């Protein structure tokens, strides 16, 4: 039986951000932008969506008088990601 894939995660950029944050402790906005090859505006919108869903934590601070945004995966984000991968596997198994 198919379970619907989490619409928050089933989007290219949001999934890339969550996958990236899962394998690190925390990452700066600029690092995520560089690795996902996205634009600052688009990334900012998607990060906000993930934050609103409670999947990531966003910390805004100043470093050497410049604003700095640090992102970190939240426990809810880990759970959602695990469920997403599980559902993904069921899709792929049935397809085979």
């Amino acid at each position, binding site marked *: 039986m198919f379970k619907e*894939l989490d*619409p928050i995660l*089933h*989007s*290219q*950029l*949001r*999934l*890339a951000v969550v*996958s*990236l944050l*899962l*394998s*690190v*402790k*925390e*990452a*700066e906005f*600029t*690092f995520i932008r*560089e*690795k*996902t*090859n*996205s634009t600052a505006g*688009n990334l900012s*919108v*998607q990060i906000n969506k993930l934050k609103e869903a409670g999947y990531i934590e966003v910390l805004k601070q100043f*470093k050497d008088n410049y604003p700095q945004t640090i992102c970190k995966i939240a426990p809810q984000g880990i759970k959602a990601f695990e469920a*997403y*991968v599980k559902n*993904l596997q069921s*899709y*792929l198994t049935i*397809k085979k």
Partner: protein
Amino acid sequence: MKNQENEFSPEQSLKLITSMIETTKNSICDNSIYFLLWGWGILIACAVQYYMKAILNNPNNGMAWLIIPVLVVLQIFLVFKRRGKAKVKTFISDASAYLWTAIGFAYLAMAFIFAKTGWEYCSSFYIILYGMGTFVSGQFIKFRPLIIGGIICLPLAIAAVYVDFDSRILILGLSILVSYIIPGHLLRAKYKKQNLVNV
């Protein structure tokens, strides 16, 4: 990368997850500077002590180790200078920092112990600690020269007990060469090459 919500298949999802995880594997911060600082610092101390002891017969040859406080100051300076510059914090970089902090305190504790018991066989214990640190660090970042350097330290630590004090200084120098200096330079070259590739 655009935020494609349609026509995004499960296969593409899986591919994307894998590629993002792979991307972070190469994001470990370049800490080769610390291996080079301590490696060259201690090698210089070994060379100076050997020269003072074996060639000049100077009884104050232990003064060569006064370089250590200088290295500690340089280390603190570098840590503060580089603090907050990393765009990403990984669990590996945290684990490495804890490992070397623990080893640093162990070096300090051993200095107090040897100051009381005598420095005759101290080099073997220091070599074992160098080896342990580089071996574990090498395994963390899957960097073979560090792992090999760490392993070589063990027979060198044992050999140091069977030779005279002058040769022991040379063995200490050799251990630092194989566990810090050579892997440190290779690590630096690897990061430089990676940066070039990324550009």
